């Protein structure tokens, strides 16, 4: 195995994420417009969360699964204040076409259209306990939980969307590409610290936040991928519901997402072994060393090995389940 280049986690960036507000500008994120009188009802019928109760100016994250119960994508549904029947879908996936084609496949009689806004829009995630206050100070708005607000920048608008589904305070800011510099300067002037991708990834792993095409994807179901909170069990049918309900009812889920610690970095995709028995697979790994001299990874770990302090072998590197 080739040893990845490593460095220390940046303490000022990690402090901002843990105690203040970090601002991460995504190189590539899926931003899709879903417009039409049937759009919300269709998304409600297709995905794991009850979306019919998402009112104007509010948002909710949901998961689209296949009829085999595997995760196709996870996205924030934003019911934008203006115009009516227009929704913004924000996904961590870099492949917007996958989300569009999946929804389009199920659009038959519905009056709903999809448009890819990813290339013309920029996504900034404000993360940390003061992220809402930072957004409020930067844009002079009141940010309620799971709300969506528009802020005018010239003829364009910036969308400010709070997301309570991540387990940490999280606000999305979506703007036109041309407005990135001015929007980012407002955010940093309000106290946010810019976060680079390596430190953002370290934080995500440390906080056990599942990532697109890492912990969740066509290779995993939403329960094992740490997305249980995105399933509304009493909402009725959605694509994959029967399979997912069966997995839960008969306790058939075989793996869970866990944070691993190791003295050396390990690569994504490394198989975990315990006494020659398969124990899981590494789904995300950070090349940043923390203050304790540890490297962190996320893995889908088999049930028998989930206990804290269980040691496993990752291609010659000893890892410990945190």
């Amino acid at each position, binding site marked *: 195995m080739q040893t990845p280049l490593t460095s220390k986690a940046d303490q000022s960036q990690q402090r901002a994420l843990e105690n203040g507000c970090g601002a991460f500008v995504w190189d590539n994120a899926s931003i899709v417009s879903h417009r039409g009188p049937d759009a919300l009802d*269709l998304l409600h*019928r*297709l995905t794991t969360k009850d979306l019919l109760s998402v009112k104007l100016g509010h948002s909710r994250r949901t998961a689209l699964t296949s009829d085999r119960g595997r995760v196709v994508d996870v996205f924030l549904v934003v019911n934008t204040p203006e115009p009516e029947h227009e929704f913004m879908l924000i996904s961590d996936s870099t492949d917007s076409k996958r989300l569009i084609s999946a929804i389009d496949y199920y659009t*038959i*009689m519905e009056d709903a259209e999809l448009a890819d806004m990813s290339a013309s829009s920029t996504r900034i995630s404000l993360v940390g306990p003061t992220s809402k206050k930072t957004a409020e100070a930067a844009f002079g708005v009141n940010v309620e939980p799971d709300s969506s607000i528009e802020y005018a920048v010239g003829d364009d608008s910036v969308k400010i969307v709070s997301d309570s589904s991540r387990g940490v305070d999280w606000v999305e800011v979506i703007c036109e590409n041309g407005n990135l510099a001015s929007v980012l300067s407002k955010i940093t002037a309000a106290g946010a610290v810019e976060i680079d991708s390596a430190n953002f990834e370290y934080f995500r792993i440390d906080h056990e936040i599942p990532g697109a095409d890492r912990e969740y994807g066509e290779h995993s179901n939403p329960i094992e991928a740490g997305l249980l909170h995105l399933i509304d069990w009493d909402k009725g*049918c959605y694509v994959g519901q*029967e399979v997912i309900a069966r997995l839960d009812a008969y306790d058939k889920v075989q793996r869970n997402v866990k944070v691993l610690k190791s003295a050396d970095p390990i690569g994504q995709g490394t198989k975990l072994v315990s006494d020659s028995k398969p124990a899981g697979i590494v789904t995300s790994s950070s090349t940043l060393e923390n203050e304790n001299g540890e490297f962190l990874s996320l893995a889908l770990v088999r049930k028998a090995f989930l206990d804290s302090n269980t040691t496993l072998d990752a291609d010659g590197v000893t890892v410990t389940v945190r």
Partner: protein
Amino acid sequence: MTMAPGRSVPINTIEITEKAASKVTKFAADKGMEKFGLKVSVKGGGCSGLTYTLDIVEGAEPEDKVIVFHGVEVYIPKKAFVYLAGTVLDFSDGLNGKGFEFSNPNAAKTCGCGTSFSV
């Protein structure tokens, strides 16, 4: 539901059984509708991804395909027809009956309750 022995439906149409047609007529009468038809369609959603929809309506839309079985007009939107071609709609009653049942040769997979399918 399995297709009745010996029954085959041409792929350019769908069929509703006499029992299903009589139920539709009864439901329309219960609603006080003199002129009616059965709209059969498909929408996204349900465990397997595509869900059948049935509605008793007063008339066809301009784009609907219209078929008559046992005195009942059946309206199928063109966009939905590709998913329904060759389907038989039956009705099963009694304690173990499921109500209206679709036997769709296009369905690769059907959910447990029979209301959704994938192709």
